[in-house]
């Protein structure tokens, strides 16, 4: 049977509408969440609410939480980025080493573990023994979450370097280490940077590992403060939670925007 052009046009438009509709369905929760966080967060950050909470006995200093978030993120970066880079390079550049398979298996398993496991691990191994809560423990727990992801990303980025670039370096007498640090790392740097920022943006919002490692000090970081306030009985506290969520959203968005800017440069 011959298909009429008109029927095909209608069918095409129907499909187009369906994709558009599904696209809206997918994006709507994100948009509504962002709008909700911004609207309520702004209320939560108003001087009146902040004064009210500061006056209460519940210590919720906003500056502490912001500083805490930045410090924890920087500490996590300081641990995870060097380790992620070195192990990722090892996996990518020495694929025939004996422990490679075991290591890759471990990294894959760790990367897929829920973040709370990292927190629980640090809690049982360190926090309970030290009998204390600390931002350093939180950073270690977050590093457990971030490191395997960075290792996996680094390995993938190094795999994507065309073999002809490697051969070019070796052909002028580069040793393996010179190849890695003189040619491959600079060539991959923007891609690595993008993944680092992405990873940090992800862990910045993690709450679960922090519950076990710095719960004793609820003001230590934005996600934990938001979590603690949200559980509170008073209306002002709930508003405070929204305020901290908004700040967290801003920080994460900044990191993602910078990361996006870097990827644009990568493409061009």
């Amino acid at each position, binding site marked *: 049977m011959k298909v009429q052009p008109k029927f095909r046009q209608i069918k095409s438009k129907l499909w187009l509408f369906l994709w558009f509709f599904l696209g809206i369905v997918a994006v709507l929760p994100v948009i509504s969440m962002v709008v909700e966080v911004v609207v309520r967060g702004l209320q939560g950050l108003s001087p009146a609410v902040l004064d009210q909470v500061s006056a209460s006995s519940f210590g919720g200093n906003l500056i502490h939480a912001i500083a805490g978030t930045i410090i924890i993120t920087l500490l996590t970066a300081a641990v995870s980025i060097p380790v992620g880079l070195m192990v990722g390079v090892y996996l990518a550049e020495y*694929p*025939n080493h004996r422990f490679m398979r075991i290591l890759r298996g471990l990294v894959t398993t760790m990367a897929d573990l829920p973040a709370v496991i990292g927190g629980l691990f640090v809690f049982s191994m360190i926090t309970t023994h030290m009998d204390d809560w600390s931002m350093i423990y939180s950073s270690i727990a977050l590093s457990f979450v971030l490191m395997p992801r960075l290792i996996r990303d680094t390995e993938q980025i190094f795999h994507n370097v*065309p073999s*002809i*670039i*490697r*051969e*070019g*370096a*070796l*052909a*002028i*007498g*580069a*040793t393996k280490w*010179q190849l890695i640090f*003189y*040619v491959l790392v*600079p*060539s991959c*740097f923007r891609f690595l940077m993008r993944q680092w920022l992405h990873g940090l943006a992800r862990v910045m919002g993690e709450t679960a590992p922090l519950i076990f490692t710095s719960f004793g000090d609820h003001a230590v970081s934005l996600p934990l403060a938001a979590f603690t306030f949200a559980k509170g009985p008073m209306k002002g506290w709930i508003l405070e939670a929204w305020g901290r969520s908004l700040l967290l959203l801003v920080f994460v968005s900044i990191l993602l925007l910078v990361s996006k800017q870097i990827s644009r440069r990568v493409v061009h």
Partner: protein
Amino acid sequence: MADVVAAHDVSAYYGQTKVLRGVTLEIRPNEVTAIIGPPGCGKSTFVRCLNRLLEAIPDARMTGDIFLGEQNVYHMTAEETRRKIGMVFHRPNPFPTMTIFSNVAAGLRLQGLRNRSSIADRVERSLRSAMLWDEVKDRLQMPAVLLSTAQQQQLCIARVLAVDPSVLLLDEPASTLSPMATLQIEELIEDLKTHYTILIVTHNLQQAARVADKTAFFLSGEMIEYGKTTHLFTTPKDKRTEDYVTGRFG
């Protein structure tokens, strides 16, 4: 100073697969020697044996001996061998984040040379030898990837020349270039042979006929015939060579 490169009974394997079968070949200095043959005949593998680049490929290995002048290359380090036996690849591979200057200087810096004026001298000399100096002398700090494909290939030749090799291996150096750019590279090869031993791998028979003094024909990992280019193309001794150069296969 150009040196003889001699391969004695060289075989190569990728895993269990033998891809090169006992090739013995002497490449004379100040001449251009071409290797021709259909795809998969072991041309590029042979070239990678000469500068020990095959070692960088996982699961690849070779047997036999390679001599550079009087010296067995396996008595040198792989890095030293590769500096003395330079290689240019089938498509330009400048280091993507480096400027034109840094690309050419890369090999010198990797050797630990730090003296700026001496590096600058070597870079200029290499770019002149690669016939690229006049085109890039005013934009040495420009990213190398912004050059045209032909210029990038000349840059890669300059990068190799900078580390002062005695032998140049060219693995299909013009395969991605336009006819005009190919001609330019061929003129460059003609010019370079006065100072270097040159081995060129090519799938382009006309190119071999144009640039090579001697030609070797490879088939299924074996060297079938080797001799003066004019003889090999006009009066080949082996039937398989004749079939290949007359276009009956390949």
